[in-house]
Each structure stands twice: as structure tokens, then as C-alpha cells.
């Protein structure tokens, strides 16, 4: 039987092994790389790790992760503050920003309503979103939660909560990706595309 590495080296291997996509072999390789690396490089990594936990917090307005009080998007005067796009996670916001077509602001829920897992409205940033819309100045809220049953359920719940405010509530379209052929789409994408068809 192998002997488990103990002490500082074993600790580092175990921590690295918790990262996604890193198995025991890779964790061992990374550990030995770090053991052989320059002290300043390793400490810079340690500082960067500490900084993401100590200095990153939710944006006061949209709950996106940020280092300041307001995130760069909320602080940008060129963004259209009358349109809000509601996403589940910061990574969804990053994905939409990469598409470089959206000029409005966001609201990050940090999850989705999952009553079967005991996740209700209180566990998310829903109250903050409702306050934000009720405060005025918002004309459209775009639901960009994931197209899963729970994501759709979350959008449905939010739409019903927002109905009284009179704000326009829309849902991201789903269907075929541009630049790809019909034959490459799976059956659900085709079904969604047919359902969401538009007139020319």
C-alpha cells in the first residue's frame, strides 16, 4: 500500500486535488513544481489566492463579484441602466459580456430557486432585485436564468413578482446557434427553435 504524504507536502497535494479537473497524479506533479519554484513566485500565487477571498465581495447594486463597492459594469456611465439582465451566477454574466452585444446592467441571483433542495427566495438576491426595480428607472428585465426546469421556474417566479411593477419582463430566446447547421442541432434545440419562430 502507498503511504499517504503527510505534513505540508501532503496538505498541499490534498488541497490541489480538490480543484476541478485535478486528479491525484496532477496534484502530485503541481506540488513538486511548486516545491521547486522560486519563493517569490509561490508567494505571489498564495497572495492572489488570499486576495480573491478577502477582497472580492458582491456589488452593492447588482451582486456581481467586485473589489470595490460597485462593480465596473454598474460604475460605467455608458451602460443602459434601464435594462436589467437577471443571471444565476457571475460566470453567466461573464459569458453574456463575452458576446459583446448587451449594453444594459445585470442582476446576479447567486443560484436558482430549487425547492426540492430547500433553496427558496430568501437564499438568493431576489429581494434586492425587487427593491431595485421598484425604486424606478428600470423599463425592462431580461430573464437569463438557465433553460432548465429550475431556471425557468425561477424566471416564472420573478415574472410573477415583478408583474405588479408594470416593468416589461422578457426571457432569452432559445434555439439554434448562429453559424451552425440544422444537422448539428440536438432535438431539443430544434424543438425550441420551432416553438420560438418569428415572422420575417
Amino acid at each position, binding site marked *: 500500500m502507498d503511504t499517504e504524504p503527510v505534513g505540508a507536502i501532503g496538505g498541499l497535494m490534498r488541497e490541489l486535488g480538490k480543484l*476541478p*479537473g485535478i486528479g491525484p497524479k496532477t496534484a502530485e506533479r503541481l506540488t513538486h513544481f511548486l516545491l521547486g519554484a522560486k519563493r517569490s513566485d509561490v508567494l505571489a500565487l498564495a497572495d492572489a489566492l488570499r486576495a480573491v477571498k478577502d477582497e472580492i465581495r458582491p456589488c452593492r447594486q447588482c451582486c456581481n463579484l467586485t473589489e470595490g463597492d460597485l462593480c465596473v459594469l454598474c460604475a460605467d456611465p455608458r451602460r443602459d441602466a434601464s435594462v436589467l439582465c437577471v443571471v444565476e451566477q457571475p460566470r453567466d454574466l461573464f459569458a453574456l459580456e463575452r458576446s459583446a452585444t448587451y449594453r444594459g446592467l445585470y442582476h446576479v441571483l447567486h443560484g436558482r430557486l430549487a*425547492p*426540492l433542495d*430547500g433553496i427558496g427566495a430568501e437564499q438568493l438576491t431576489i429581494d434586492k432585485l425587487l427593491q431595485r426595480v421598484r425604486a424606478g428607472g428600470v423599463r425592462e428585465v431580461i430573464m437569463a436564468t438557465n433553460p*432548465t*426546469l*429550475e431556471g*425557468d*421556474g425561477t424566471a*416564472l*417566479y420573478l415574472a*410573477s413578482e415583478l408583474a405588479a411593477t408594470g416593468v416589461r419582463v422578457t426571457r432569452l430566446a432559445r434555439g439554434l446557434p448562429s453559424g451552425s447547421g440544422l444537422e448539428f442541432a*440536438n*432535438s*431539443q*434545440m430544434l424543438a425550441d427553435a420551432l416553438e420560438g419562430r418569428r415572422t420575417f
Partner: protein
Amino acid sequence: MAAEKAQALVLRTTDWSETSRIATLWTREFGKVRALAKGGRRLKSNFENALDLLTHCRIVFLRKSSGSLDLLTEAQVVRRFPRLRSDLAALYAAYYVAELLESMTEEYDPHPLLFDAALELLDALGSPRVDEAPVVGPYVVRFELVLLREVGYSPALDGCASCGGPVDESRLAFSCAAGGLVCPNCVGQFRDRQSLSPAGRKMLRTLQQPAEDALRQPWEAGVRREVRQVLSQYVTYLLGRQPRLLPYLGS
């Protein structure tokens, strides 16, 4: 290690690693099955689509020896229920069905009638019929009564649950501990008793029968609430805790 085929409803999925997850499936042929779905988190795969909650799918899985997880190798959508995405009452009723199936049945304990009852509810509440928005209560009650019968806890609604004797029609008393109505002689032994109106009893008895028109009967709102309360307490008693979805459930 045998490859099994089954029809299934997806009750729950939990992430297992970056690329795989564990699906809890309720199959018609084998009852509840938990299986590892490798690549089940990869976007755009048919696999991923079929594993969305409350999807009716056809699956193939490798049944492992006891102690290790079954392995899901195929999943194809048979149908999904779009109205659950546009009607909150229907969505919560469907979540409740998933919760009861998961928490009140054991793995590899098949109940085909229960599978059919779940599908019947999902079909009625989750299929797009623009002309009508069905009242969810009776559908949920019908499903609960099938479930209770299948797991051996059908509530006694004709005679006394304790001694089998006749019950007092003018003062019906329901006890969760007794498992149904109790007669005047036995009622003293059951401190958890609650009163049940003749109309509430009638709704329960009617929905215990398989007739479909009972589901669309215009049950009075007060009666629906009473029946909801009795069944909520009974299910909570049997489960030993309140189901998570109960507070969301309409009558």
C-alpha cells in the same frame, strides 16, 4: 453487471464532478434508481437535455453490484411538460410529486401504477392546453392516494382504521396515527384526531377511485383546503417531517 432498459422520470440531479452528475430516476420497471451520468453536465448533449428535472425519458443503465453506483449509459427524452414552465401552481405540484416519489419509496422497489399516476399528473398539469388552467389540488390528491395505497398506507375512509367498526357519519374523526377515520369507541385513543366534513370524506373517497372525471369536478374551495390539510398532516406523519414543497402547494 447487466444493462437494463427503463422508462424514467428524473427526480433530482446532483453534481458529482466537473463533467458528471448523479441522477435520481424513478423508473416504471425498477422503482427508484440512482445512477452516475458521466458527461451529464456537458452542454448541448442529448444526455444533458434528458436529465432535466421531471423529464420523461427512456434510459439504459448498468446495474452494479451492491455498494457501488449504477452507471447511466443512455438517456433519451420521451416527452417533457412545457406548462410546468409557465404555471407556478403546476410546477410546485410537480416538484411535490418528485419529492414524495424520492422520499417515500425505496430503491429497486417498483410500482408501475405509481409511475403511471405520476405521469398522469404531469400530463394533465404540464401539457399545453391554452383553453384551461386545471385546478391542481384534485390531481395532487389523486396522486397521493395512489402513492399511499402503493406503499401500504391507504387511509381508511369507510370503517374505523383501528377496529373496523362503523364510523359516526355526523362526527367524522381522522387520525394520522390510526391511519384513517376512527369510530366513536376508538376515537379516545387517538389524540391526533382532527375532524373531517362529510364533503371532505366524499372528495377523498371519490378520488381514491380511478375515474378521470372526478379530477375535473368543481370541488368547493373550502373542501379542497380541508382535504389538503388532512393529507398534508398524514404525509408529514408518515414521513416524520414536513415535505419541503408543502408550503408551496395550493389546494
